[in-house]
Each structure stands twice: as C-alpha cells, then as structure tokens.
C-alpha cells in the first residue's frame, strides 16, 4: 500500500465478519452467533443512540459548551458489540473515546460530557458501573486492567476484564508490558484494540509493520481480527474471548478493524493528512446502515420502528444538551477535595487561606 492509498478499504482475508456492509448475514465456522429479532433491534437502537449523543457533543463543542470532544463516529459497532458482550461482573477499562461502551455500562452520557466540559476529571463511580474512568494518557489503562484481572484471579471470581485502546497505543511501552504481564500470569483479560487506522495524523504504518492482531503471538496468546464495523461479529468475538478468559484460558487480543470517520478530537483537522476518498470508501461500510439494511431485508423491523428510534435519539440529544448546559461549575473549594483519602495538613492550610482570600472580595 502506498502512503496515499485509501487504507483499510479492502478488508483483509483474516477478518471475522458476520454481517456484510450490504446487510447480508454470512456464516463463520468459529464465530457464529444466534440473535433474536429483538436483540438485533436492541443493538440497532444502541448504535443509533450513541451516534446521536456523539453528534450532540460535537455540536456542543462547536458552540463553546465543551472544551474538546473525542468523537466515536464510525466506531459504534466495535464499542456496542464488545460492550454488550460484557456481563455485569466483568470490568471495562476505557480510553477517552469509549462513549459507546459507557452507554452499555449505564453511565449517564452527561457525565462523559462533564469531563470534556471541565467540571471534573472523571465523575462517575467505576465500581457502580464496572466501567473505569476515562484514561487520557495513551495506554496506561492496559496495565490497570491486567492488575485488576490478577485481582479477579486471586478472588476466584467468575469475571473477566476488557481493556480498550487504539492502534497508536500499541506502540506504548505500557501496552506491551501489559501483554507480557497478562501472558505470564494468564490473566483473565481481553485486549480490545480499535484499529481506526489513524493516531491523530499518523497512519497505522507508523505504528506497525505487521497486522496488529499478529502481535499477540509474540507474547504467547491468541490474536484475532474482527470487522470492527460489524456489531454482530464484534459481539460474537468478544463474547468468546471473555468466556475464554473467565474459563482460565488467559488473554486474547482482538483487533477491531474500523475507521475513525471524524476527527481525532474537535481540535483536529483531518483534511491536512488524509484523503476524502478514504472517508467516502469507509462510509459505504457504515456500522449502522448495515444493521438497518439487515433488519429491513429480513422484515425484522418496519418503518415505524426506525422512526421511533430516530425520535428517541432526538429526544436523547435534546436531553443531553439541556442537562449539559445545566451542569454547575464546581465551587472553588472543590480544587482541594479528594486529592487524598485522609486528612492532609498542607491542603487544609491552603484551602483555608484561599477561601479566606476569596472571602475578602465579598466584603
């Protein structure tokens, strides 16, 4: 592939796919999945709703209400498919783009927006959702996830851990160290790499000379590539890998082959480094359109269903917007809260001094 050729447009042969971009079901000898019509409609609903939340967040950023936003556009199937594969007891460790997984773990989208608005650096209770806080430093969370999985091992619990990261993160030392740890301790973990082809402006070729899923073999565990725009395949492959982990068979690396259809974040300008043709080619592989086509073709949903979902999405967008705008700024004293679990004399002193200083303006 030359540097300027549209990348990832032609699916490599090793890729697990259960639903074509045209909405045709295909069989796979190892990863087939039985889904009821209700389950497929439910997956479709999730895909549409998280895209709508994402769209609203981008708009809010453009209107100055969020400092920045990292869009998941194009990666909905990878996130909903893998997120829906989790049981309540499983634990997920996200990057800062896993809005779809957060949705699957019942995290209020407004809490995600709060982070990007700057009202907190996290803001939800990870234990309540078994969904860890967003991690902004690239790849750091992979080690946390492996450590957590080692804890699951020691507890003898029927659970697994999944950690999300991108193609760029596979170059990080922490991700490679996490592969080593998971391997030698046989930790119950799934490494879910969303290869969206771009690490801001750097294409995959800057990170790896081999397909990412093949990295796993060097560490001694299986790697598999799945069509990251196929929610059925992502669900099936992740479900299997999680079960293997729970059964004591150790880690799996899943490379979800997908595409970041938007910018890296709202601060980015992808027209400076990638071709419009590439985006157009990937639009034909859209993760939502293929499920819609499948539902239509198989008469599993009618026009009324799609209109209902669209209306629900619009209502969700409006709700998220109004609650985002209503988020109060934290009070100044909150700077000093939660830095330490216990009392800390220096912070107590600084808090008191600063609040006294502020009070001086109110006289």
């Amino acid at each position, binding site marked *: 592939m030359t540097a300027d050729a549209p990348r990832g447009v032609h699916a490599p042969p090793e890729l697990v796919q259960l639903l074509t971009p045209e909405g045709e079901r295909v069989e796979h000898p190892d990863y087939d999945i039985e889904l009821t019509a209700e389950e497929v409609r439910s997956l479709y609903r999730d895909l549409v709703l998280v895209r709508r939340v994402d769209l609203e967040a981008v708009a809010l950023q453009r209107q100055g209400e969020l400092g920045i936003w990292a869009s998941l556009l194009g990666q909905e199937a990878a996130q909903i498919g893998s997120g829906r594969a989790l049981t309540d007891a499983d634990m997920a460790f996200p990057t800062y783009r896993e809005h779809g997984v957060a949705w699957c773990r019942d995290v209020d989208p407004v809490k995600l927006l709060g982070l990007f608005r700057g009202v907190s650096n996290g803001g939800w*209770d*990870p234990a309540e959702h078994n969904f860890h806080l967003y991690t902004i*430093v690239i790849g750091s969370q*992979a080690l946390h996830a492996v*450590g957590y999985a080692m804890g699951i091992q020691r507890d003898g619990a029927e659970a697994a851990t999944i950690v999300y990261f991108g193609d760029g993160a596979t170059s990080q030392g922490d991700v490679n160290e996490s592969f080593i740890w998971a391997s030698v301790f046989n930790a119950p973990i799934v490494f879910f790499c969303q290869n969206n082809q771009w690490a801001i402006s750097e294409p995959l070729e800057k990170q790896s000379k081999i397909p990412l899923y093949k990295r796993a073999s060097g560490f001694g565990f299986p790697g598999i590539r799945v069509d990251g725009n196929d929610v059925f395949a992502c669900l099936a492959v992740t479900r299997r890998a999680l079960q293997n982990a729970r059964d004591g068979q150790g880690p799996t690396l899943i490379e979800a082959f997908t595409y970041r259809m938007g910018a890296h974040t709202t601060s980015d300008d992808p027209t400076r480094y990638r071709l419009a043709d590439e985006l157009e080619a990937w639009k034909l592989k859209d993760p939502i359109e293929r499920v819609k086509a499948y539902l239509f073709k198989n008469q599993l949903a009618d026009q009324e269903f799609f209109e209902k979902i669209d209306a629900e999405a619009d209502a969700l967008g409006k709700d998220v917007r109004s609650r985002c705008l209503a988020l109060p700024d934290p009070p100044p004293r909150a700077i000093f809260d*939660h*830095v*330490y*679990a216990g009392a800390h004399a220096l*912070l107590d002193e600084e808090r008191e001094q600063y609040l006294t200083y502020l009070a001086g303006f109110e006289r």
Partner: protein
Amino acid sequence: MTTLTLAKALNEGLRRSMEDDPKVLVMGEDVGKLGGVFRVTDGLQKDFGEDRVIDTPLAESGIIGTAIGLALRGYRPVCEIQFDGFVFPAADQIITQLAKMPLRSLGTLKLPVVVRIPCGGGIGAVEHHSESPEAYFTHTAGLRVVACSNPADAYTMIQDAVRCDDPIIFFEPKRRYWDKADVDLAAPGLPLDRARTVRQGRDITLIAYGPMVKTCLEAAAAAEEDGRDIEVIDLRSLNPLDVDVLTESVTRTGRCVVAHEAPVFTGFGAELAARITERCFYSLEAPVLRVGGFSTPYPPSRLEDHYLPDLDRVLDAVDRSFAY
C-alpha cells in the same frame, strides 16, 4: 525488645501487615525466593505464597500499573522498586495515574499502594544505584512521601503505610539497612505524618530525613564537645510536612541547617528553607542553610564520599550559620 537491622525491621513490619490483612500483597523484581536484593522481603513468599508475594516481570511501569489495578480490585499492594535510579520507567504511572486517580474519581476510588524505594548512596555502587529522587515525588500532589531512618521507625512506618488509604512513596535508606537497634515490636509508633525531635538542643536546629539523620546525630554529638547544643529533627514524612514541629524548634533556636543527599538546587531543602523563613522570619539569626549533594549527577563511587554530606560538612554549615 528485639534487636533488628533496619532491613529486618521492614521485613517484620511487612510480615505483620500481611498477617493482619489478607489483601496485602508484595510485588516486585526478585522479591520472592531471593527475598529482594536487600532481603527486605526474605521468607515472605515461602510463608504467604506466590499469589501474595509476586515476582514480577522486569518492568517498573508494569509493577506500578498492575498494582493500581490490583488496588482497584480491593488489594493493598506493596511494590518494591529495586533501586532509586530504576523508578523512572514507573514515573509515568506514579505521577499521571497513581497520584491522580482518586481525585479523578471524586473520591470514590482509593489507591492504597505503597512504593518502596531503597534510596541514597554510600554503598560503593555503580551508576543509578545511589540516587535520592524524593523531590520529584514531593512535587506530585496526591502522593504521600515518607522516609524512615532507623529500625524502630521502619517497623511501624511500613505498617502504617500499608494501612494508609493514600498512595505512598516509601524511601528506605539503603546504607542504613544493616544498622541495628532495639525494637519494641509491641510499641505503637509515632503517626506516619509526624516529625520526631531525635535530639533536643538549644543552639541550632538540624533537619534531616532518611540516611542523613544518623549523620546529623553524629555531627550533634561531635559539636557537643565544642560546647554547641544542637537539636536534630527527623522529618519522617516529607509530604505532608509536619511544619509545626519545625517552626517551634527554629523559633526557639534561631538557626537552622537542612541536610539531604539529593542535590541542593531545587531539592527538598529549598522547600524547608522557604517555609521556615516564612514562619520564623523574626526569630532567625541567620538564613536557613542547606547541605547536600552537588548539582551534578551522582559521581562514580570512588568520589561519593565527597558528594555525600558527612559530619564535617554538616558542622561546616553549622559554623557558617553561627558566623552570621
């Protein structure tokens, strides 16, 4: 009373912590069968098993990163960084994750992780085995930073550190590992965030922590022959800082010298000097003086006696203080 080396006191403290709480884990390079390169974890794996005393792959970021994950699952990991100069691959996990995650969670997460670091020089080691990186960590909000100086404190401080719900950088003075003292294994220790006045005096206050406490006590004993009555304070905790003990002492003596092995320039002594000056300005007869390493990388070991502040350099600073 039991006579213990500082290393053995840490070992006994860790053993007690592991007996008291099944969630306490020890992890690091060579901490298992070998018992650590300084034998601080000697025998623990034999008695508590490989699941609780974990020989890790040789990667420091991995040690701290997985310890964070274990802590998130409810464990209390005690990590050993083999030598001070090897903590830097773990600095990212310590600074960006360990120190900040509780705040990120708005207090819903606690990270009771202890990072043990043998620190300082004086053992004739090769490069990267003699450093004093405490200021990097005292500058990082969210961490507690402590340094033990003697066997009795080592025994209680390590247990207090393990019980603490905040992440702690725990410095161990490696050239004092083999120092022996009587330790009362039943006696409660001073709270972890408190400084201790280890010698009372009227004329000047010497402030030290970790390996330099012994040096300062020796300097004080030598100065006594010259008629100078030196007070010595062992900080024990660098963050938070027990500033009231320092203020009371310097207000009374009017003079202060701070000693540490780390380079003086932007070292921890700079914070002490500034804070004491702010608090004790009208009582000071001389500026707070600092004695420490030079603004150079740690030298080859044949030169370390020149780099490390010894009794004479501490007393030279005392003389300079009195010359004002």
